[in-house]
C-alpha cells in the first residue's frame, strides 16, 4: 500500500514538473514581448512610419524597410505561389507512383530542411552573379521564393489531399477531363488550405533576413526603390542595422521596428488561425 502511495506521489510530482516546464516557453515569450514593447513604444511615433533612417534616433524612420518588405513579399508570392501550387497539383493529381515522383518528394522535404543562408549563397551565385541581376529587389525576391517554395508546396498538397474523392468522381462521371476537374472542382475546394499556406509563407518571408543579407540587401537606404532592379532594404534588416549601432537609443529604435514587424506577423497568424478553424469545420 505504501508503495502505491509512493508511485501516486511520484506521478503528481511529475505532473507538476512538466506543467512548469511547459510554462517556461510561455513565460519567456511574455518577458520577450514585454521587454520589447517597453523599450520600443516611446519611438513609435507618426514620423517613425514616414521617415528614412537617420543619424538622430528621434528623427529616424522605417519607411524604406516597410516599402522594401512589401515589394519583396509581393514578388515572392507572385513567383512562389504558381510554382508551388502547380507542383502540388502535379504531385497529388498527375504524378504516377514511381521513382521520379518519390525522388521529387524526398527532395522537397530536404529543401525545407536546408538552412536559409544556403539559399542566400545560391542567390548570390546564380541570381546576383550568373544572371547578372545585381543586388536588386528581383534577386532578393527570387531567392526568397525558393526559401518559401517548400512551405507552399506542402500546405497545398495537404489541402488537395483533403478534397474528398467523390467530388472528383462526380466531375469525371460528367465527362470532364482531369485538368477541368482540377481547375473547377479540386482547386476551389482546396482554396482555404492553399491560402493558409500562402499566408504562412508570407510570414516566413517577412521575418527572414539571412538570405536577403547574402544577396546584398542594404541595411541603410536613403531613397525608395523605383524598379525591381533597385537597391533595397527590408524590415528585419533595418532592425538589424539599428541593433548594431553602439548608441543605446538605436537599440530602442530597433525595438520599435520589432513591434511593427511582430504586429504584422501576429495579424497574418490570426488570419491563418481563423481560416483554419473555418476550414476544419467545413470539411467535417
Amino acid at each position, binding site marked *: 500500500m505504501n508503495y502505491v502511495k509512493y*508511485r501516486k506521489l511520484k506521478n503528481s510530482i511529475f505532473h507538476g514538473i512538466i506543467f512548469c516546464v511547459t510554462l517556461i516557453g510561455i513565460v519567456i515569450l511574455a518577458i520577450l514581448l514585454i*521587454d520589447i514593447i517597453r523599450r520600443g513604444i516611446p519611438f513609435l511615433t507618426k514620423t517613425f512610419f514616414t521617415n528614412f533612417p537617420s543619424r538622430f534616433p528621434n528623427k529616424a524612420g522605417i519607411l524604406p524597410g516597410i516599402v522594401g518588405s512589401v515589394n519583396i513579399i509581393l514578388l515572392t508570392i507572385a513567383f512562389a505561389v504558381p510554382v508551388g501550387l502547380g507542383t502540388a497539383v502535379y504531385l497529388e493529381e498527375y504524378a504516377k507512383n514511381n521513382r521520379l515522383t518519390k525522388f521529387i518528394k524526398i527532395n522537397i522535404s530536404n529543401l525545407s530542411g536546408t*538552412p536559409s543562408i544556403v539559399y542566400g*549563397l545560391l542567390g548570390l551565385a546564380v541570381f546576383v552573379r550568373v544572371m547578372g541581376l545585381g543586388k536588386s529587389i528581383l534577386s532578393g525576391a527570387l531567392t526568397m521564393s525558393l526559401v518559401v517554395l517548400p512551405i507552399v508546396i506542402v500546405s497545398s498538397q495537404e489541402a488537395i489531399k483533403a478534397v474528398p474523392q467523390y467530388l472528383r468522381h462526380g466531375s469525371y462521371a460528367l465527362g470532364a477531363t482531369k485538368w477541368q476537374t482540377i481547375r473547377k472542382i479540386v482547386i476551389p475546394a482546396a482554396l482555404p488550405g492553399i491560402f493558409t499556406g500562402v499566408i504562412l509563407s508570407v510570414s516566413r518571408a517577412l521575418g527572414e533576413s539571412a538570405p536577403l543579407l547574402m544577396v546584398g540587401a542594404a541595411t541603410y537606404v536613403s531613397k525608395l526603390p523605383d524598379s525591381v532592379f533597385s537597391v533595397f532594404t527590408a524590415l528585419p534588416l533595418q532592425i538589424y542595422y539599428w541593433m548594431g549601432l553602439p548608441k543605446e537609443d538605436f537599440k530602442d529604435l*530597433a525595438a520599435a521596428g520589432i513591434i511593427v514587424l511582430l504586429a504584422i506577423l501576429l495579424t497574418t497568424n490570426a488570419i491563418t488561425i481563423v481560416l483554419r478553424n473555418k476550414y476544419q469545420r467545413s470539411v467535417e
Partner: protein
Amino acid sequence: MTQSANAAQDRKAAGNRIRRMKLSNTVARNILFLFASITILTTLGIIISLLRDSIGFFAEVPIKDFLLGRVWTPLFNDPQFGVLPLVSGTVLITFVSGLISIPIGLFTAIYLSEYANRKVRKVIKPILEVLAGIPSIVFGYFALTAITPFLKNIIPQTEIFNALSASIAVGVMTIPLVSSLSEDALRAVPDSLRQGALALGSTKMETSLKVVVPAAISGISASFVLAISRAIGETMIVTIAAGARPNLTFNPLQSVQTMTSFIVQASQGDNPHGTVGYYSLFAVGLLLFLITLGLNVFSHHMVDKYRKEY
C-alpha cells in the same frame, strides 16, 4: 437530309471539343511537371553553385588543411583556413541549445498529449505557435539586450558577445519545433496501449514514460534531429549575439563564430569576387549544406525504419 447533316456537324464539333479538352489536359500536365522540376533544379543549383566556387577555394587550400586546421584567419595577410574553430562554434551553440530545446520540448509534448485537458491545450497550443512564428532576428535582439546582461549579472566574466546567450535564444526558438512534432508522434500512439498499461495498474506517469514515449520514439527522435539541424543552420541569432571571433573553445561564456555567422560576416565585408576569401564563403556553405542534408536524410531514415504501424 439537312437534319442528318446537322447531326454530323454537331458530332464533328463535339469531337473537336473533346480533342481540345484532352489536348489542354496534356499541355497542363506537362507545364505542371515543369513546375515540379523547379524543385529539383533548386537542389542542383545549390550543389553546383556551392561546388563550383568551392573548387576555386580548394585549388588554393588543400582539403586536409581546411577540415583539420585549427586556425581560421581569412582576413590576415597570411590567411589560414582551418575550419575547426567555426565547426566547434557551431557544435557548441547546437549542443547547448539542444540541452534547452530537447528536454523542454519533450516535456511540453508529454504534458500536452498525456496530461493536459482540452481547455488547457486550447490555450497553450496557440501560444506555442506564436513563439514558433517569431523571427530569429527578434530572438537575436532578445539575446543581445536581455539575456546577455542577465548572464553578466550572474557570472561577471561573461563576454559581451558569448555563445551561451545565443544558445539560450536558439534553444527557446526551437522548443515549439520539438514540442509540436513530438506531440504529433505521441498522439499517434493508439489509446489501446495506454488502456492496457492503465489496466495493469500503472500510473499515468508510468504509462507515459514506459509505454507511450517508447512507442512514439521514432517521431520523437526525428523531432530532436530536426531541432539540431535547425540550430546548426540558425544564422541571425548567432551573428547578433555570439560575436565574430573564430575560437576553438567549448567555453560558452566566450565569443565564438559559427559557420553561418562567418558566411554573413564575409558576405558583408568587401571580399572581391575571385579571391580565396570570397571562395571560402562557398566552401563553408558547402560543409554546412552537407551536414544539414545528412541530418535530414538521417531523420527521414529513422522515421521510416522505426515507424510502427498500429
